[in-house]
């Protein structure tokens, strides 16, 4: 597996859990402590630690430590690979629909080309 495929795996893994998405949604409003980012989330501390590691490994968050306070931030470039992967497929389909539209505009008489 090449490194870009591995990065895609990490990106989509990062997004594939509601707790991790909640953390990302909160960090979208600015950096926050771990406590702030996970407030009200019904999971244990070890589980939070695990989720944060998945997000860090994917490069979608960064963290700094001040004594006992861990502060997190969204890494805004972190999901670029996943975005371009999705874009690629969206544009394929948009191109297909463009072809269908052109076909229909011609009255659909010309068959497949």
């Amino acid at each position, binding site marked *: 597996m090449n490194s870009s495929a591995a990065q895609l795996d990490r990106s989509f893994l990062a997004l594939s859990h509601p707790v991790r998405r909640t953390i990302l949604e909160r960090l979208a*409003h*600015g*950096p926050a402590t771990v406590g702030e980012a996970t407030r009200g989330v019904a999971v244990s501390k070890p589980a939070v630690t695990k989720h944060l590691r998945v997000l860090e490994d994917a490069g979608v968050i*960064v*963290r*700094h*430590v*001040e004594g006992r306070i861990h*502060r997190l*931030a*969204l*890494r*805004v*470039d972190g999901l670029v690979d996943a975005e371009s992967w999705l874009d690629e497929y969206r544009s394929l389909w948009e191109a297909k629909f463009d072809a269908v539209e052109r076909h229909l505009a011609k009255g659909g008489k010309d068959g497949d080309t």
Partner: protein
Amino acid sequence: MATREGTVVRVQRRFAAPRERVFDAWTNEDVLREWWSAMPSMRPGTIEVDLREGGRYRMEMVTDEGETHIALGEFREVRRPERVAYTWSWESNPDAMAGSSDTLVEVDFFEDGDGTIVTLVHSGFAAEQIAELHEHGWTGTLEELAKHLNA
């Protein structure tokens, strides 16, 4: 990258420099005197920074036309090299802050491989229009900082 949600400004930028160096460039008056500017047509004027919690700063930017913009405030948090937070207002043009005399700037410095990600959140503006001006200002300031760090 910058976003604005009503009256809160958020800017993030990655610098190809170690965190201590980026933190010092942002907070140390000797380094600030070398680059403090929000756009290429501005240069630093008199810069005074008492970098400790409760300490104050006063920083001038001078335009090519000789106009001086003076920002000042007080440090609320100083934790080298991770985080600094300070109040922010304009001595030169208090009207520029109309109704938002005590805005807060929070800057965090995150290690990111061999570089540093800086996030800046500026909150407390009374109007979205004022926040928008500051969003442009901070984006330009981070650009000028990048030039300084790459020089």
